[in-house]
């Protein structure tokens, strides 16, 4: 489902070369819930950006849902992001001046869906996160946890195969974090592959599998708790 072979990412300036990721070899199967941990600056976000086709890389191959994304055009990468990937960010990244309905609508608009289909998907997504009654509210009228749930609704509205979550609970208190985590687990239980970057060891342990990144190098740790959940491999 997601396969990286010897992928490296180097940031270059006139004076310095920074190896953000070195020879990453990774295989994530369909339906997995994978947590990614590591210290600050270790390359977690870079890994997530590469996985989400938000950045290009110099070396190696990256197969997403069977397609090698290396060398694809900018337009094609946009299509892949739109159709196959849902993004959840630590800071929610909702558009503050748009109602919840329109926020969730953004990725669907770029897919060229009909008005009717978009409406159905948006309402369903907001229902899933428990905010269907507030679709005309602005993000600023919601709590942090609710905003993150809207972001999750936006991520799942297009029925992507992957959810990439970058510290989705980082800005939330423990109760809210718990609710968001349960929501992600629920989504995963319905077959969506989730890769979640987190600093929280407790949350990381709830994933099927944990990947640690240290100095741009990935070590893949099979989790004991994951033993019975590998469904769709």
């Amino acid at each position, binding site marked *: 489902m997601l396969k990286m072979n010897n992928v490296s990412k180097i940031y270059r300036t006139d004076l310095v070369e920074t190896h953000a990721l070195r020879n990453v070899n990774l295989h994530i199967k369909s339906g997995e819930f994978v947590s990614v941990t590591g210290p600050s600056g270790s390359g977690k*976000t870079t890994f997530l*950006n590469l996985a*989400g086709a*938000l*950045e290009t890389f110099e070396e190696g191959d990256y197969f997403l849902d069977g397609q090698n994304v290396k060398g694809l055009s*900018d*337009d094609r990468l*946009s*299509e892949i*992001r*739109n*159709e196959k990937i849902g*993004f959840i*960010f*630590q*800071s929610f*990244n909702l*558009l503050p*001046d748009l109602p919840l309905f329109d926020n969730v609508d*953004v*990725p669907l*608009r*770029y*897919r*060229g869906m009909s008005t009717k289909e978009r409406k159905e998907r948006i309402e369903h997504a907001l229902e899933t996160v428990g905010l269907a009654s507030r679709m005309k509210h602005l993000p600023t009228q919601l709590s942090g946890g609710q905003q993150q749930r809207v972001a999750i609704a*936006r991520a799942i509205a297009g029925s992507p195969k992957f959810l990439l979550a*970058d510290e989705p609970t980082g800005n939330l208190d423990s109760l809210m974090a718990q609710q968001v985590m349960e929501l992600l687990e629920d989504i995963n239980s319905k077959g969506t592959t989730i890769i979640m970057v987190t600093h929280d060891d407790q949350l990381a342990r709830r994933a099927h599998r944990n990947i640690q990144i240290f100095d741009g190098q990935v070590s893949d740790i099979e989790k004991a708790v994951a033993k019975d959940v590998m469904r769709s491999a």
Partner: protein
Amino acid sequence: MFNYNLQLALKSLRDKPSLTFLTILTIAIGLGFYTTVKTMSYQGGQVPLAHKSKNIFLVQMDNREITAEEVAHQSRLVDTTYKDTLNLMAMDLPGVKQTFNWSTYGILNVEDENINPLRTFAAVTSSDFFTMFEPPFLFGNGWDKAIENSGEGVIVISKLMNDKLFGGKNSVGENVRIGTHTLKIIGVLDTWHLARKFYDRSFSTARPDNFFIPYTFAMENELPRRAGFDCWAGNADISRSFRTENTERLINSECSWVTFWAEIPDDQVESYNQQLHNYIEEQKSLGRFPREILTYVTNLNDQFTYINGRNDFMNVFSLISTLFFAVCLLNAVGIILAKFMRRTKEVSLRRALGAKKKTIIAQHIIEVVIIGFLGGLLGIVVAHFGLLGMMKIALYSSDYTRQLEDLQPLYALDFTMITNAFITGIVCTLVTSIYPIWRLCNTPPASQLKSQ
């Protein structure tokens, strides 16, 4: 997708209304000034008689001595001698009309004693003046060749003079006196809009003459001649006297002072030139026309190309307005750039969620086109008032000797100029906004997503 991009563009314009208004106002002021000047230049440079301007020719024959200095352009050259004028008029030229003119002056009276005598100028011309140059008639007509040949004292007056002397009524049949001569009015012109008074070669923005008198009457009665006499072959010393006396000597002299025009159909131009050449050859055998290049037959279009190109005041004014518009555009683009750069996080997010680069470009092009359109719209309003102001200044600087209705065509925003203003506003705003749009659409999708 267009509808969605349009919605986003309109929303963006509404989000910061004061900034949007400032951008539009900046463009409008620059475009308004630019359009004001361009309209003045365009209207002032309009070639009269556009439907046949390529067929209306100024005819010049260079009868100067062989030692005379070369001139930079034929527009600098002399007019025509009276004897050549009459010889050309006598030529048999099928389909060709010819006329000529000079100016006279005098004290004009009417029978109504309540009207003060006025010092005035008048155009002296031939009957085809009216058929060639097509001034509009309010009452009556011009004179025909029979009247012309009879030497009868007739006159055509302008609407302005008809209003002033006869209270605007139909004055055909009334008499006026110029000096001691009585002339019967046979025609009253309506307002005659000429962007430039071309027929006397002044190309000035002054209004056309108020009186037109047949040349036969003027010569027979020795009306004074208001002309520059370019005399060769020994008449230079008495040339000034030709204004009021020595008519016989002037008629037979080599002094050029008559402005000669011909209306020549396309298929007759070559033939006309040939006949002119034959005439010169004939005259050469009589010892005249010593120079090599002797005739210039220049149509109105070519004359206006030359005149407009040498309108230094308007050219400089035009350059200043263009530079001012450019400065305004740069300021507007600065505002647009700042506004767009505040949007990098949103663009980054939209790109991450699947927006293609070209979609982002389209969204912002729509926004810029709307700004350009509104700038164009407001610019036209600014230009309207700018032209109104310039017209008032022109009225003031003429000491109110000119009428508003004479000036209005020179300061009129017509369909062409309005269209130009819109296109200029939109295209210039779009072109100068390429950089802000390029900067924005090249925002990497991942660059702004991590920050708070």
